[in-house]
């Protein structure tokens, strides 16, 4: 088990720069998740680590060795593909056995048989070993792809969005299983996804990437509670946090936030007061997660805002209420049985201890 080190790695496709000066140190036995929307450069990064794409500039070290000029089969890695990439003309057994029949990793057939059966049982696909890929369901194909990856014991596992084409229900179950496998095997892994739930569940650290640039690298807790900029703030959380434009003003000695698009004001949290007042620019962006907004049908003393209901959605264990305050839309988390009608009056209370501030020009977080 080795680590993976990327130093100032850049990837250009012709004139398009897909990855910009990415530096990342994945320690041994660590699972790092690269999280970002489609087109952010995450798959390109993974393919460069695998050796399937050339590095335009920068160095990649796998297990301490410079890997830039090594062929894929010379790097000790295993990879799952977004589209599974099973060999369509071979049975499930042969698909999983192939890595151990290759010139570089050859093992005797007896060993191969044992290994394939072990992994097959672990993933629950031992009954499918004689089938052809075309006869499998999406979930089964996904497991076979995973199995093919696990039969060897490489230095690094690379996962390329393994769950993106799977039904929602199967996805959640597979996510739990992958976490369990990772806990057991403790191999260095790099996992690429656009689903923040997978990132939070599986990553020891998360690298948030957008348009080829790293936005933040941190533990799941850091990414969730202390996002470094607006992009990271919005990518984690469903529904995502609402971002509002506001202006700091001092009225009657009290520091207040005047929210643009409404006539409402919110008090500034005491620990942020000094930092916000010291800034040259009185404009800020405020991020509020729906889980910290409470809605009620009656006006209470603690309620700071009043608006009208736009739409309500019941999601599983909670409800999401979209309330329009003036021109802005604020989302509040409610119980799943919350009753409301469109255009009904609604009062909102914001938990200001969990509000986060961002600079409107740089989108970076303003921290105390």
């Amino acid at each position, binding site marked *: 088990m080795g680590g993976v080190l990327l130093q100032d790695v850049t990837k250009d496709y012709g004139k398009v720069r897909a990855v910009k000066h990415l530096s990342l140190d994945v320690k041994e036995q660590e699972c790092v998740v690269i999280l970002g929307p489609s087109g952010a450069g995450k798959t390109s990064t993974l393919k460069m680590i695998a050796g*399937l794409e050339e590095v335009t500039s920068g160095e990649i070290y796998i297990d301490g060795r410079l890997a830039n000029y090594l062929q894929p089969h010379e790097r000790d890695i295993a*990879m799952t593909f977004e589209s599974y990439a099973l060999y369509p*003309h071979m049975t499930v057994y042969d698909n999983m056995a192939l890595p151990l029949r*290759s010139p570089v990793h050859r093992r005797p057939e007896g060993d191969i048989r044992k290994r394939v059966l072990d992994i097959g049982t672990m993933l629950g696909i031992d009954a499918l070993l004689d089938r052809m890929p*075309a006869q499998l369901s999406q979930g089964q194909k996904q497991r076979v792809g995973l199995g093919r990856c696990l039969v060897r014991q490489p230095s690094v596992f690379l996962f390329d969005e393994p769950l993106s084409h799977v039904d929602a229900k199967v996805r959640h179950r597979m996510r739990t299983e992958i976490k369990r496998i990772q806990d057991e095997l403790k191999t260095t892994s790099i996992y690429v996804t656009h689903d923040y739930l997978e990132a939070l569940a599986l990553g020891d650290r998360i690298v948030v990437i957008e348009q080829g640039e790293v936005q933040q690298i941190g533990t799941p807790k850091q990414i969730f509670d202390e996002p470094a900029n607006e992009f990271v703030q919005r990518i984690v959380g469903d529904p995502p946090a609402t971002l509002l434009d506001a202006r700091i003003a001092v009225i009657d000695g009290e520091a207040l936030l005047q929210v643009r698009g409404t006539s409402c004001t919110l008090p500034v949290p005491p620990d942020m007061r000094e930092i916000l007042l010291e800034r040259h620019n009185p404009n800020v962006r405020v991020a509020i997660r729906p889980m910290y907004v409470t809605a009620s049908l009656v006006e209470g003393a603690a309620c700071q805002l009043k608006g009208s209901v736009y739409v309500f959605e019941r999601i599983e264990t909670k409800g999401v209420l979209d309330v329009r305050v003036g021109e802005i839309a604020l989302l509040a988390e409610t119980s799943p049985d919350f009753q409301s009608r469109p255009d009904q009056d609604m009062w909102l209370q914001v938990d200001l201890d969990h509000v986060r501030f961002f600079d409107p020009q740089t989108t970076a977080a303003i921290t105390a």
Partner: protein
Amino acid sequence: MNRGRINWGKLAARLVIVGYLAFVVLPLIWLLLMSLKGPLDVMALPPKIIFKPTLENYRRLFLGTQRSQYEVARTDFPRALLNTVIVAGGATVLSLVTGVLAAYAFARFHFAGKESLAFTILSLRFAPALATLIPTYALYRRIGLYNTHIGLILISQVISMPLLIWVVRSYIESIPIECEQAALVDGYSWWGAFRIVVLPLASPGIAATSVLAFVFCWNNFIFGLFLAARQTQTLVVATLAFISYEQVLWGQMAAASVMTVIPAMAFIFMVQRWLVRGLTFGAVKA
């Protein structure tokens, strides 16, 4: 289907099929019968269907020329058969080796002028062979390729190569590149991945086009006529020799034609197995 009610639609369709089959197959059967008839039966009018079959024509074909008052033609049939096998077989093998690799390059790589080059290769089939024959003849004589097997093999590439490249290219394009990449990551070099993933999956296309290429080369008349002499004469041209100034040796010509058709048919039956196997692997998309 109800008894007593005739399905006119199906009946008509069946009649059409039978008629078409008869149209195609009857001449071949007639050819076969002709090749088994003696010189008198062959010329009989009205044509005889019941006759005493003889293998005389085949014997004469294979055992060289015979002196008799009915023959002026001299032709070396076994040699022509060998030549045709060498030329058609050689041309197909050469096209396979270079064509499949070229198809891979077109399918997977991006380089300047790719589509222009691909179209140029396809355009080799546009021009009728006759139009280019005189310069080719002059060139061949000049560089000494006239009347050589190599010369015939090379000129036959014009027939077989474009076909192979175009069909195999689209087969390879339909193979997801991730399957090759998976093989690379699993420990195979490029060539290993090509052997294990690309070739099996493209095999129906390769088999089908190599059959077509072989048959086209086997049946080719023009090149054999102009660019070969007695030593490298191919079957089709050799059969022509049975039409002479004074008479047509129908019997032997029929025998020669039958011999020309059989090996090609045998080859197709052999390769057909791969065609069917390749197609039953199901959709290429894993």
